[in-house]
């Protein structure tokens, strides 16, 4: 039996700071794109980080912490929407205040408008794939559906975006039998 170096409090804190520092900006971005509101996304991201830290014995060994955080963030968003039906209606129909999400001029406005045309699942899948580089399997886990359904959301979402002049090079564009 070989004894290894002593564990220290700093080890965990350093790992946490590193993981959170790398994941947080993209987590906020992804949740902003998925929910349509940067301010809401910041709240969701911080709550997801709190849950990540509170379950450290399990989350410390995750292969893809960003995917886990995105899934938790989406779950929190769904809970929030369920709790406030009126807020949900305002989010899905009218969209959030424009000033909360305009970031890069006309191009970004066009993108936000295009995302608003997608269903919630399509939007979450597109963001997971093209913003967080998640695999379809990870997307399926994040949004709570089957792998084939996640691919269908991606395919349909891309088709909608393409009609609005947005596209990408991805084999997922090709409909699978």
């Amino acid at each position, binding site marked *: *039996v*070989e*004894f*290894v*170096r*002593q*564990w*220290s*409090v700093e080890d*965990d804190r350093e790992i*946490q*700071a590193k993981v*959170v*520092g790398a994941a*947080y*900006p*993209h987590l*906020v*971005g992804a949740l*902003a*794109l998925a929910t349509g509101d*940067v301010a809401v996304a*910041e709240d969701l991201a*911080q709550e997801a*980080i*709190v*849950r990540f*830290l*509170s*379950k*450290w*014995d*399990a989350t*410390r*060994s995750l292969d893809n912490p960003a995917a886990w955080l995105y899934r938790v963030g989406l779950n929190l968003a769904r809970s929030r929407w369920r709790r406030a039906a009126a807020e949900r209606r305002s989010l899905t129909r009218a969209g959030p205040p424009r000033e909360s*999400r305009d*970031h*890069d001029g006309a*191009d*970004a406005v066009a*993108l*936000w408008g295009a995302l608003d045309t997608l269903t919630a699942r399509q939007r979450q899948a*597109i*963001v997971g794939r*093209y*913003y967080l*580089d998640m695999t379809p399997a990870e997307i399926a886990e994040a949004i709570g559906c089957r792998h084939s359904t996640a691919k269908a959301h991606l395919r349909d979402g*891309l088709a909608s*975006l393409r009609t609005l002049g*947005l*596209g*990408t*090079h991805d084999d997922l564009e090709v409909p699978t039998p």
Partner: protein
Amino acid sequence: MIDLSERLHRAVPEDQPLPDLDRLRDRASSRNTAHQRFRFGAVICAALLLVGGTLALRNQARHSTSASSPAQPTSSTDVEEFTSSPADTGPCYQGLSGIVFGGTYGDGLCLAVAPPSEDGTMVWFVADGTNNGGTRFQACSKTPAGVIKSIGDPATGPSFFVVAADVTSLSIPLDSGSSLTAQTVSVAGIDGVRFAATRYPADASVTGPISLNTDPLGGTVECTAP
């Protein structure tokens, strides 16, 4: 055509200031504390219900048999009290759960068990919140029969022991003429060894070799890992 991925990245600010991690840690910590209190309350309620139910059943059985059976004299038997025995599983150290020891000489001692990985399972030896080091065990890790691996000061301070799988307890002779008994415990996923932990009375020291109490059946556990 600008790639969709690039457009998405341009559409949101990616220079978000990081939140105060210490504040988030505090929130995580207070949440865990609340969950633990809730869990503790639930366990107490379940225990009370169990005890109440058992007493009620026993009372009922006594009443139903007292009429037909003459009263038997009760005989007291000596019950060996483990001075250090595994009390529970639960939070142990820095977000790791593990096996918590209890009793007068086990209080404050625990084995923090990290989630298993391809490299094995890491077990940390924690006394009063201080980590005394750890060891990585494979599923089939073995300690030769009769050999004790100890961590800490086996004469006076908090001590942890790693022994063979068939060892059920350790008897530690003290200079006062009495002895401590430390019950061993197994850790899930580690089949070949068992663990024990104990501390010593402040005015006592170990005076002789530690003896191992074994159960032959404990040694027949087959390691099933590949």
